[in-house]
């Protein structure tokens, strides 16, 4: 796999976008560059033969993170009365930092260049793929071989959501999550919001269903579904849910709960989180389905933010 001119160009463009995102003066432009950067990184992943990662990077790394950053910028600009302090102005510190960063980069690059012969686990995965219940090796790793990571990760998302909810003001508790719809009825976004959901729903479900055989899976599918929900609410077609809503909470926890239950049930088959090969196929699909629901709900709620008090004005 010799690098092509395309790869070289892509790397340079990635670095340029990253530079603009980290070094640029204007915060809003930095975020925009970051989103561009995310999409470029997703392309890099395609070049590295990692389609699942490319999907995740595009949907989560670039898309959702970008949305979160933009929303935070807008909210901070509204709330912080004055222009926040800008970048460090002491040149000596800046130069020292730059030098340190350079040294670290060289160190890491050196470590990378001197890596011993690769001893990947491709072989192990391929050998056991049949028993895993998934045809896509990445899905097999995510939901079977290293399912415990994935289970904990789905709970990490909930932990972040709980953390965000603790930031609500006391009087706002029980109210609707923060994001108000921001468009006038009949605007482009509103129209878009009407068309997108059915398509998005289809794409999302497809990604999950396909995930066991081809690239895709619960996280990518969940992100798409979350995006659909977010757009629907931004378009004013729906209201954000109340944090105390029973259905919402059930949707948030059902995926991890079922996954956990399955893990415990595994001890009857020999060990923690054992999926008997005969049933692994449909078990994985079922877990992915509920996980997708929970992930979609959690991601959307992460974007909506904590409940905010009703506008008084």
């Amino acid at each position, binding site marked *: 796999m010799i690098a092509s001119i395309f790869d070289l160009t892509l790397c340079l463009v990635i670095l340029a976008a990253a530079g603009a995102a980290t070094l640029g003066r204007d915060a809003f432009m930095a975020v925009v560059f970051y989103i561009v950067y995310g999409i470029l990184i997703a392309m890099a992943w395609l070049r590295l033969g990692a389609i699942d990662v490319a999907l995740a990077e595009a949907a989560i790394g670039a898309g959702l993170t970008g949305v979160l950053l933009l929303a935070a910028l807008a909210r901070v600009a509204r709330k912080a009365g004055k222009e926040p302090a800008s970048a460090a102005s002491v040149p000596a510190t800046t130069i020292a930092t730059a030098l340190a960063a350079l040294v670290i980069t060289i160190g890491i690059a050196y470590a990378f260049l*001197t890596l011993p012969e690769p001893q990947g686990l491709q072989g192990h995965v391929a050998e056991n793929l049949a028993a895993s219940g998934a045809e896509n090796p990445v899905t097999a790793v995510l939901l079977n071989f290293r399912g415990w990571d994935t289970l904990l990760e789905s709970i990490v998302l909930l932990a972040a959501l*709980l953390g965000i909810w603790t930031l609500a003001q006391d009087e706002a508790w029980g109210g609707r999550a923060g994001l108000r719809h921001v468009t006038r009825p009949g605007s482009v976004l509103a129209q878009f919001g009407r068309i997108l959901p059915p398509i998005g729903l289809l794409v999302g479900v497809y990604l999950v269903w396909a995930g066991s055989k081809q690239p895709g899976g619960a996280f990518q599918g969940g992100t798409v579904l979350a995006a659909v929900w977010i757009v629907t609410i931004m378009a004013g077609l729906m209201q954000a849910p109340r944090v105390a809503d029973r259905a919402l909470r059930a949707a948030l*926890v059902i995926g991890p709960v079922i996954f956990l239950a399955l893990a415990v049930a595994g001890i009857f088959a020999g060990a923690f989180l054992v999926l008997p090969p005969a049933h692994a196929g449909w078990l994985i699909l079922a877990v992915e389905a509920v996980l997708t629901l929970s992930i979609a709900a959690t991601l959307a709620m992460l974007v909506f933010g904590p409940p905010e008090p009703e506008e008084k004005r």
Partner: protein
Amino acid sequence: MTASALALALILTAPLFGALAAMLMGRRGPAIALATIIATAAGTLILLVIIATEGAVHLAIGGWEAPLGIQLRADGLAGGFIATTALVMGAILAVAAKPFAGGKTERRSAYTFWPLALLLWGALNAIFLSGDLFNLYVGLELLTLVAVALVGIEGKRETLAAALRYMMFALMGSLLYLLGAALLYAAHGTLDIALLAERVGSAPGDIVAAAAITGGLAAKTALFPFHAWLPPAHSGAPAPASAMLSGLVPKASFYILLRFWFEAAPDLAGSGVLMLLGGLGAFAMVYGSLLALHQDRLKLIIAYSTVAQLGYLFFIFPLAGGESAAQPWAAGAWSGAIFHALSHAMAKASMFLCAGLIIEAIGHDRLPGMKGIVRALPMTVFAFALAAITLMGLPPSGGFTAKYLMMTASFAAGQPFWALMLILAGLLAAAYLYRPLALAFALPDEDAPAPKAVSRARQFAPLALALAAILLGILSAAPFAFIQIGRPGAAVEGLE
């Protein structure tokens, strides 16, 4: 189904199930916590018996052995941390039941506290049992996010700033750790600790990885100079949360450091690195103690004390790591540090719970307000005093056993510097803990407002923890033998 699989499943999943249930049912937090405590404690007891009778337990999750799957390993060290965590969490949640009670309508902090607290427990157990560096990363992230959320739960400007500062350190720490893990996988094709032990050499990649992992974990353990986030974060949270944050959370990253340096990469440890870690620990000890002396709020004193006490956990590296590992004193130094970690967990949690009860009684934690508090809260002050004895390392507490073991090792190793630092640490601890204690025992001012009553049952929880820390010293023979089970190198020495 084997008993060990059942025990491990209970320990790993009960707190997580509890957290999810508490998230679903907003006002049932205390009841769910009680059920969680019972289930986890049951699992812990079974596990302890199994480890004690049959030795270390190994379980391949999903039946997939390394390098493909994630391995769970419950040796004496893991068992000790899990049991201590269960004890400490039980006491903390018992005290928290009142301030975070469900009530008629759901309240924000009462709702979020319970799932966060139980997730914290689940994350700790996941970390203590894991034998895979990437799985440890996910567990550590869960722990960190929960801990940050708990710091910010009061929602005040200062506590949010403290949570943010903590978050920034934690983010950097996570990235460093992740970088190290990525390099190790790239070089060796596994992140299983046992397999890494056979494969890690001293290639540049391994050295950069070890440096990154150590730096990242040190930031999360608040080792000097990464300590700045800790005192405001630990003192700003509500007392039960502070107790978890100070008593348990830093122990998790320290635990991973132990697993890394003593099991995954024992041969990589050069004396320079070990001395540096120990030296930073000594610096943290002096610095944290001196700052603790200058605080005027009880919770800040306790929080700075944590910086100091965590510092001398790091003496384990020069005394038991690298070339010392093969020496006869290594077992003592290693065990001493573990005893310190465990007894500090109990004593520090007890202290923060005491501080919380004092705040409930007088409404704040400024030192002068504590004058004469012993009359209103005798059990609490007694618990605080017992916990102080452990932190000072006075006999017959667990802290003393720890200090004795580490000092003996340090003289045997011909490095008496660490022993002198330990003595100094004890004296400084006595100095900064003396002020609140002496005030508590003084006669109250005539015009001081009467403290609010706090029920005896709730005062019992910190007392039980402080007594447990003392008992760890009096009954140290069994715990000492227990934590040696499965310790790398224990068999070679023929010491046990």
